[in-house]
């Protein structure tokens, strides 16, 4: 059974269409990055998955309807919907007590173990912690929950690079195993590139790109083309072309690596570069369409 299955997911806020028929399929054991520009519908899609927003269309998360069965779903699903949503008045010890009191799958010892690696004191109130420490605390609480699905919406927004790196490292090393599923949205795509197993781009309420990272690495190649080969390279129909360090950098979809190697240095593109290419092409196709 799929962890998340959505068909024709729609959501409108007044006249603004946030989700315009999203089809989504996430298998168990994947780490999916949902990448999109601001206002593309990322947060709305995630909110529908975790039962925070109503939607039209079909959506099943771990076999349940998230809108009507949020509280049951939350035994198996965990989410960090935003940075710094922990209540500012709560003490670290109270947060541990409360989650242990209401969550059947919370392992308090595990959470204490994670906290021991940080400088967070048990008696501190959340308002006394720095933003990075609040994120660490939230992550410690969430990682101590034996959930099947973890949803992260911009979990590292506004944190400095050390905290961000640490966040994803502990997620990978201490939390993820093949039976869990993680869905993450972030603008810092370069930081999650090595973390993800699957990649999805969302734009204007639709999933516009969906592939696994293995597929991504084998299909997409970026070439720094020698100036003398530029015409030959362009003949191979690159999906995107940009200038960098005085050279043309062309992005190819499904072109033989050896063929490209003759034209210049070949490498795997970054997610950001592919994102720009896909979004650029989208914009080209939808010329004049209102954003």
């Amino acid at each position, binding site marked *: *059974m799929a962890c998340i299955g959505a068909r024709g997911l729609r959501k409108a806020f007044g006249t603004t269409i946030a989700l315009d028929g999203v089809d989504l399929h996430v298998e*168990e054991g994947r780490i999916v990055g949902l990448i999109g520009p601001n206002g593309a519908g990322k947060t709305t899609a995630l*909110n529908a998955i*975790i*039962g*925070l*927003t*109503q939607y039209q269309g079909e959506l099943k998360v*771990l*076999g*349940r309807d998230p809108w009507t069965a*949020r*509280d*049951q*779903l*939350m*035994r*198996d699903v*965990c*989410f*960090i*919907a*935003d940075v*710094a*949503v*922990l*209540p*500012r*008045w*709560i*003490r670290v010890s*109270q947060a541990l*007590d*409360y*989650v242990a*009191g*209401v*969550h*059947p*799958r919370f392992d308090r010892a595990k959470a204490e173990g994670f906290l021991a690696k940080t400088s967070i004191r048990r008696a501190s109130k959340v308002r006394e912690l720095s933003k990075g420490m609040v994120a660490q605390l*939230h992550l410690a609480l*969430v990682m101590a929950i*034996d959930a*099947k699905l973890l949803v992260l919406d911009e979990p590292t927004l506004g944190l400095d690079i050390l905290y961000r790196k640490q966040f994803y490292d502990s997620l990978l090393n201490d939390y993820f195993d093949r*039976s869990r599923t993680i869905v993450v949205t972030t603008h810092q795509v370069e930081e999650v590139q090595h973390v993800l197993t699957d990649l999805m781009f969302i734009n204007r309420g639709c999933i516009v790109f969906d592939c696994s990272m293995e597929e991504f690495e084998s299909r997409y190649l970026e070439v720094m083309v020698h100036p003398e080969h530029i015409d030959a390279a362009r003949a191979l129909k690159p999906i995107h072309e940009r200038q960098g360090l005085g050279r043309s950098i062309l992005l190819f979809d499904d072109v033989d690596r050896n063929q490209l190697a003759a034209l210049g240095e070949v490498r795997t593109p970054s997610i950001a570069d592919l994102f720009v290419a896909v979004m650029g092409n989208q914009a080209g196709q939808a010329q004049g369409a209102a954003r």
Partner: protein
Amino acid sequence: MSTQSNAMPESPVESQVIAPAVISATRRMYWSVRRELWENRSIYIAPLAVAALILFGFLISTIHLPDKMRAALALDPAKQHELIEQPYSFAALLIMGTTFIVAVFYCLDALHGERRDRSILFWKSLPVSDLTTVLSKASIPLVVLPLLTFAITVVTQWIMLLLSTVVLLMSGVSVATLWTHLPLFQMWLMLLYHLLAIHALWYAPIFGWLLLVSGWARRAAFLWAALPLLAIGVVEKIAFNTSHFAAMLGHRLSGGPEGVGFTAGSMSMDPLTQLTPGQFLISPGLWVGLAVTAAFLAVAVRLRRYQGPI
């Protein structure tokens, strides 16, 4: 957990290994109420502070207590009774008034604060239903505060009596008059009845309404709670030149059938005869009020599901 996890490949084994402890609804309720007490410490700090103030004032007043008692001995028994009892009733009234105000402000913030500080996104990530959350919040004015008021008042009055006794004994005045004219157990029984009948049951629709508004208003919850009621009264007055709505509100706030007897009659010689629980329990006002409360709370539960951070 059982049906859908078994349908998944690999997970039956896992679900046997980690058999999650089942958390009962009562336990979730218990922690949710504790959570409210952590967040809103004014629930117990405010009445305790008032009790401390009362005791402080009373301690100063004990300077004149021996003289007062000697003077009281000359009066007739009914006057004696009134004079002796008065500070104790006043203390009870003051603590009760404080917790009522605390309850009103608590309710107005209960479902509003968590949306304002975005912490609703954290609470909703835990397996606690909106129903449990709203009920735990409603239990503060309906259960926790009345019982807390009772406990604090009992302790305060008991300390007052103890102080008086010590002072009188030291000054050589007989404590017999004080003890015979202070029917503390009777007073406590009346207080408990008043708190449960009026503050918990009769006032329930008021708290239900305040919770509903706090779950709905994006800002200025207090205004949203008060102005519509005022508007209804004004429109009724202008349109029909009647004031049934205002009369109904007044009846509700004054404490209904039982409240009049309690406040106006104060503490007469035999106050227990004033209690008419049978009459109260069959009064339609009580049951209509409770039905309205249930409706308000049901709307509040629904609102909490729809509302996100503001």
